[in-house]
């Protein structure tokens, strides 16, 4: 069942064609990975899927709804959440507040209620705090609840972004290099987290360089090279696809595959 349909999207920055004519479908409830050498256009693609960039041409449909060209916050309202390759944590808040901010769409609040702090709002705030607390526990950050984000270590911040994006209760979660800069243990924790998310029914699109993670966790892999789709299919297929191997390594050898 297709959750997201991407059709022939193109994006150029000046003379640089970052993405050219890329089309693919995302199956509901599956973990999809997008891989490719540096400069292949992965982050640009993710930016378009989250509404941060607008495609020059092509369509993006979520659940049949055409989202192309809409403002970023509308993508979020449609049920798409994401993390960032270059951390975009709210450093001016605590970890808990970061996650609570993620509840924005789920806890609407009128200006008047905010100014007067109505009892209903106070109750909603307490509920929001509880949800955020539970999300922090889920990603293993229970100890950092009151910590200011600018005092937290890198690995924790990566997990914080995931918790924040989960607070939206998204249909589709885009993870942009969640394991980048993490050591083996931390990467394995992310691995486990993604598997849990998939088991819970969240559709995940993962952009990653960590091949072991990709092979272990994905149901489907899309390979980008120089802004175009090079190949797509099951992880095992992709690992042995000669075009993929050539694009990555330039020589004949096999990528690590899930044994």
């Amino acid at each position: 069942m297709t959750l997201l349909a991407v059709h022939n999207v193109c994006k150029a920055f000046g003379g640089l064609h970052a993405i050219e004519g890329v089309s693919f479908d995302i199956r509901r409830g599956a973990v999809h990975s997008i891989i490719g050498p540096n400069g292949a256009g992965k982050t640009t693609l993710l930016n378009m899927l989250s509404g941060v960039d607008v495609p020059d041409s092509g369509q993006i449909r979520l659940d049949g709804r055409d989202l192309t060209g809409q403002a970023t916050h509308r993508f979020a309202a449609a049920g798409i959440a994401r993390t960032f390759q270059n951390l975009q944590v709210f450093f001016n808040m605590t970890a808990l507040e970061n996650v609570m901010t993620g509840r924005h769409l789920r806890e609407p609040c009128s200006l008047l209620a905010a100014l007067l702090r109505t009892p209903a709002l106070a109750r909603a705030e307490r509920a929001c705090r509880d949800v955020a607390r539970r999300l922090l526990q889920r990603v293993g950050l229970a100890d950092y609840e009151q910590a200011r984000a600018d005092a937290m270590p890198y690995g924790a911040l990566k997990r914080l972004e995931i918790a924040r994006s989960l607070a939206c209760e998204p249909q589709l979660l885009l993870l942009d290099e969640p394991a980048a800069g993490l050591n083996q243990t931390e990467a394995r924790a992310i691995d486990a987290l993604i598997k849990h998310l998939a088991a819970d029914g969240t559709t995940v699109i993962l952009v990653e360089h960590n091949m072991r993670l990709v092979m272990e966790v994905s149901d489907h892999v899309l390979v980008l090279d120089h802004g175009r789709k090079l190949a797509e299919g099951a992880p095992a297929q992709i690992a042995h696809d000669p075009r993929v191997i050539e694009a990555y390594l330039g020589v004949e050898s096999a990528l690590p595959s899930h044994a």
Partner: protein
Amino acid sequence: MHSQWLQYVASGLTVGAIYALVALGFSIIFNASGAINFAQGEFVMIGGMSAVTLVGAGLPLAAALPLAILAAVMVGLLLEKLAIEPARHADTVTLIIITIGASLLLRGIAQVLWDKRVHSLPAFSGDAPLRFMGATVLPQSLWVLGGAALAVAALSWFFGRTLFGKAMLATSYNPLAARLVGINTRAVLFASFGLAAMLGGLGGVLIAPIAFTSYDAGIMLGLKGFAAAMLGGLGSFSGAVLGGLLLGLAEGLGAGFVSSAYKDAIAFVIILGVLFFLPRGLLGAGRSDRV
């Protein structure tokens, strides 16, 4: 009627040349640091007021003028060292506020050092007005236009032909890359302030005989110069010149034909129009963020 037009055009271009000099100063500093120097107008004021003091002390114009410009340059360099450099990693809003503070500081010092009165400088080559196609043109206007044109030509030569000038341009395109090829970006920033102050000081001495000068003459000149820089496209040198001249023209014609009471408002209405409809200005290029 024809001569009236010419009159307004002449006076408009004259003040526009000063705006252009101030605008160039803004663009140079913006290119070097990404910051807006709200104290730019104060360099003009310092140039004018210093010249007045030096001439009043008995120095001939030929000596007083360069010394006055030098005074402005010294102030600019001091400002960079004491206020800008310590905060060079701060965000835009912080830097804006620092330069506003610098503007206040300089004006406050000027108020104490000099006084609150309005002063004027003798015209460089006399006051006898020249007749040109039915319009009356002050000889000082020619000095202003000539001086500004010379400054612009010198700047083009500097940025296009000298090594340091090219280094400054490189820094404005990509500070990180510039540093990586060995360009001392702190020196570039330092020099930018000196250069901007020189241009401002030059404007100050050129316009003082016509528009008079006082401790707070810098405010409006600075703001309008900034408006001119934004009109032409912040960071673009030809844009600064174009913006300055266009703004001066708009003011001259507007004051003459529409309403002289609202003359000062013209600059700001134009700038709002530019900001809302053409935020990059006429000749400017944009920058984008990477996520």
